[in-house]
């Protein structure tokens, strides 16, 4: 069974607004997750500049030896990153589901301030449900 390692939500100015790790592989502490998030934000921006095709919207998948990095960019500039096992299928669909949950449980919550860190109980609860439903093993928890 394929597994995902961690999920990052990055606001349009590159700040990490949500981080969660799933499973014991690739766990990060707060400092590392912040650093990695801004690194990936910049990497995404650079990939747009470097692309030979005009109208490129940026990197979608980065394949490394030990993990795959999938990115979903919303129209408002919020980016979702998921690090998964190499070759894990169906992550694009999972990212879409996560974006729907973000639109529902974060943006429709009157106590959430846009671009600020996400602290929504319902979002985390439904996120876990969705990841379980998509049959990704959430090991170690």
């Amino acid at each position, binding site marked *: 069974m394929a597994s995902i390692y961690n999920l990052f939500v990055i606001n349009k100015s590159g700040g990490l607004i949500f981080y969660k790790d799933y499973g014991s592989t690739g766990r990060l502490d707060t400092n590392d997750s912040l650093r990695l998030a801004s690194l990936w934000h910049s990497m995404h921006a650079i990939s747009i500049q470097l692309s030979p095709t005009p109208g490129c919207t940026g990197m979608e998948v980065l394949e490394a030896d030990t993990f795959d990095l999938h990115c979903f960019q919303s129209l408002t500039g919020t980016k979702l990153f998921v690090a998964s096992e190499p070759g894990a299928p169906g992550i694009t669909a999972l990212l879409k589901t996560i974006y729907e949950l973000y639109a529902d*449980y974060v943006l*429709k919550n*009157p*106590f959430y301030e846009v671009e600020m860190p996400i602290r929504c109980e319902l979002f985390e609860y439904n996120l876990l449900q969705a990841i379980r439903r998509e049959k990704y093993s959430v090991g170690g928890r």
Partner: protein
Amino acid sequence: MIGVGRGPKQLLNVVDRPLGKGKNEVSLSAFAFLFSELVQYSQTRVDNIAELERRLEDAGIGVGLRILELLCHREKANRRETRLLGILSFVHSTVWRCLFGKVADSLEKGTEHEDEYMISERELLVNRFISVPKDMGAFNCGSFVAGIVKGILDGAGFPARVSAHFVSVEGQARPRTTILIKFAEEVLQREARLG
């Protein structure tokens, strides 16, 4: 020109026209965003949680009064409930079906006090997307629905104090919302007289 070429039927006064059945579906997303804005707007104008609850309740009262008028005309052929249980089941079924598309999960009588009734809902529609931050304690956006119920009861001649509370249920991750209705003394006295 407006009205030219139309039959006499369309020129009827608005109060003479039959009352429409109403559109019974509204986009949940649109409502959720509007309600979210209502809460945020109210939040900028209050100093404490109790005041915020009162503001949401006030917003609901206006809805309740109008819903009562509308549903009495539309569903009940201008008949009005005069008895306590009658009006409670009207709120529990007719009003709930009109507002939320379903009957409320339960209607119970309070065990400790004679004048208390409770309408419980496993997942209140207005609370579907809302996570209340820990520092706001027991605040419940269901106050808006409590206001609607209060508006209906006040308008029908059953003055009551209505409030919304989270009640945790065993074996379920999410607490349910209970709308607590405490009727004024005169209502119970009248009920007793009517027998």
